[in-house]
């Protein structure tokens, strides 16, 4: 099937004989890559191991000696980090290409056991006493250090999530999407501040050329956090005050939009369009609610149809524009 395509292309003079030969040879000796299969097995292995260890400790927390548990966890942890240190490439401020994803996952196991270790210490011995802030701050700093030192994106996102936890909020992707807890001012402001911090981190990453490939992870969280917290703020306050939030939203959206165009990112473009649609629709509906007439239902429906069509056109045009850049 494939080769007949190339025969046809060759017949039309679109490819040279060399290319034809090269392609045919490549197809006849097709290698079968087990890359993703092995990676997924590895991922599940690490997940099972770490979960099993967690349950083991949880169940036996009163029966086995604490020193023993701590020693075992520490041993696993040290073993993993020693392995990674031995197999890592020299540190660099650029991306360090690790072709060896096994080491990446061993690093993950080591990090998870470290977190278990710290958690256990706090749970059993209260080493941080009642300074709960410290109990999250130290693991977070360690996570950031590991992420930078070993160049591990997954651990960076864990560190970012822990930064959120330290500030008292949760920022895993699922949590953000399914959240219904934006109902008090503190939470909204915390999310907004975290978003701004991450935005700053993203830019500093680029500006100082430190691990530029970490940019996405910072920026991704920051964009979602900023949009969601501004929207939450908008819907939280009454009509008059909320206009300030709407203005802030417009400012942020404009900025992120310009940035998406600059980076040619379809993803951030889509986010901007969708979040803006929610903001504008929210504004229109809240404004329409002032009309106390049954006809308002019609206007509302017509608004959604018209705005939907409008936004489809906007999205299609922006797509064209971005592709043309």
């Amino acid at each position, binding site marked *: *099937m494939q080769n007949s395509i190339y025969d046809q292309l060759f017949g*039309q003079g*679109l*490819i040279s004989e060399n290319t034809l030969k090269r*392609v045919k040879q*490549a197809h006849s000796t097709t*290698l*079968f*890559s*087990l*890359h993703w299969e*092995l*990676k*997924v*097995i590895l991922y*599940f*292995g*690490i*997940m*099972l*191991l*770490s979960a*099993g*260890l*967690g*349950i*083991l*400790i*949880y169940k036996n927390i009163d029966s086995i000696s604490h020193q023993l548990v701590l020693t075992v966890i520490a041993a696993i942890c040290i073993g993993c980090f020693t392995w990674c240190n031995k197999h890592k490439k020299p540190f660099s401020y650029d991306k360090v290409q690790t072709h060896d*994803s096994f080491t990446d996952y061993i690093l*993950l*196991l080591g990090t*998870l056991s470290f*977190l*278990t270790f*710290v*958690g256990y210490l*706090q*749970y059993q011995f209260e080493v941080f006493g009642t300074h*709960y802030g410290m*109990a999250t701050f130290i693991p977070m700093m360690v996570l950031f250090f590991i992420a930078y030192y070993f160049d591990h994106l*997954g651990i*960076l*996102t864990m560190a*970012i*999530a*822990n930064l959120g*936890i330290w500030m*008292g909020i949760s920022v895993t*992707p699922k949590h953000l999407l399914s959240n219904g807890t934006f109902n008090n001012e503190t939470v909204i402001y915390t999310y907004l501040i975290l978003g701004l911090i991450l935005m700053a981190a993203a830019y500093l990453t680029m500006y100082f050329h430190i691990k530029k490939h970490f940019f996405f*992870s910072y920026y991704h969280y920051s964009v979602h956090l900023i949009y969601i917290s501004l929207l939450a703020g908008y819907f939280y306050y009454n009509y008059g005050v909320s206009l300030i939030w709407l203005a802030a939203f417009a400012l942020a959206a404009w900025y992120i939009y310009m940035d998406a165009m600059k980076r040619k990112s*379809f*993803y951030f473009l*889509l986010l901007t369009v*969708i979040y803006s649609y929610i903001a504008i629709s929210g504004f229109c509906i809240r404004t329409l609610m002032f009309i106390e007439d049954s006809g308002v239902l019609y206007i509302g*429906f017509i608004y959604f*149809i018209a705005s939907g069509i409008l936004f*489809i056109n906007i*999205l*299609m045009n922006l797509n064209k524009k971005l592709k043309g850049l």
Partner: protein
Amino acid sequence: MIVYNRTWLANLILIDTVKKDYDQGLIPDDEWAAIRLNYTHQFYSPNIFIRAGLFLLTIVISAFSSALLTLFMADSGIVENSGWILFLAIANYIALEVIVQQKFHFRSGVDDALLWISGSLFTFAFVTITNADQNYLALSAFIFLVSAFLSLRFTDALMALVGYASILAVVFYSWQELGTLGTSTMPFIIMLFSGVSYWIIRLNINNPKTHFYANSLDLLQIASLLSLYAAGNYFAVKELGDMLNGSVSKSVPLGWFFWLWTMGLPFIYIFSGLKQKNVILLRMGLILIGVAALTYKHYYKLMSLELTFIICGTLAVALSYFLIRYLKQPKHGFTYKELSKVYLMDELKVESLVISESFAETGAPPAETGTALGGGRFGGGGAASGY
């Protein structure tokens, strides 16, 4: 039958095929440009991000259009007529045809949304008109007709999957009509049907007639392999049998056969997948090993949960470690290297998102906002979730 311009569709497939080789550096840039110039199409098919946006917006438009229309007509009483839903379904379908034929949308999000909306509305209309919501046989037969038509006309793979699921349901419910004989031979008829389906699909995979349906056939292979396994899985056989007979049984007749099927089939999949270098078989086999393990654990308690986790985890890590080492240099036509490196989804850094979703939260010692100490939610990534 196919709504799309066949030449364009063929060109699109050709370009996609050649692109894979181009990404691997087999084709020089100037020749690639020449090929693209010669095989053009006018389809509007934006990338996945834009597609997702268009999909959502189209659902909004369609839903509110239907609502507005219903509101306008509410006074006239037409709406109460059971044909009203059918009318909305037809309206959505016409919109779909127009978008595809006039605007040349192809997997743009707009056509995807309209396809699923009209398919669902047709089914809903069938239920309201015939009151057949208790007659599962008729319902699944109708769903099969709709999805078969839509998947053939719009070459949509997911719709083809719905088609397969509904025809499987038709087989199931019509066999059930046979009474006791039917329920006791149910696993075998489903096995037979799935096996034959898989065999027919594999036979026709290089048939020129299925050229435009390559994606659908891939998905159908997965579906038929899955139903072939599920038909003989001990858990499925026992629990489903109990449900159909309204009984609570301790074991099933021919239990040894179903256990053999549950445990053996994944390995047969993996083995033949490696032998034929068939990704679908291989991956299905790997996933089903997990299912087989869960089935076993459901009935027999060999050891504690944590010990199972630790042993299986260690085995998985060790296995992948040795294979990664072993396959660093390609052997017997297998390699650990990634062959194709260009993914659009790379922009999302999916791997890191998966890691953060599954591990990130679990490391937290009790925080200030949390409940009092002893919440027990420390350490052990993922330990708390779902077990």
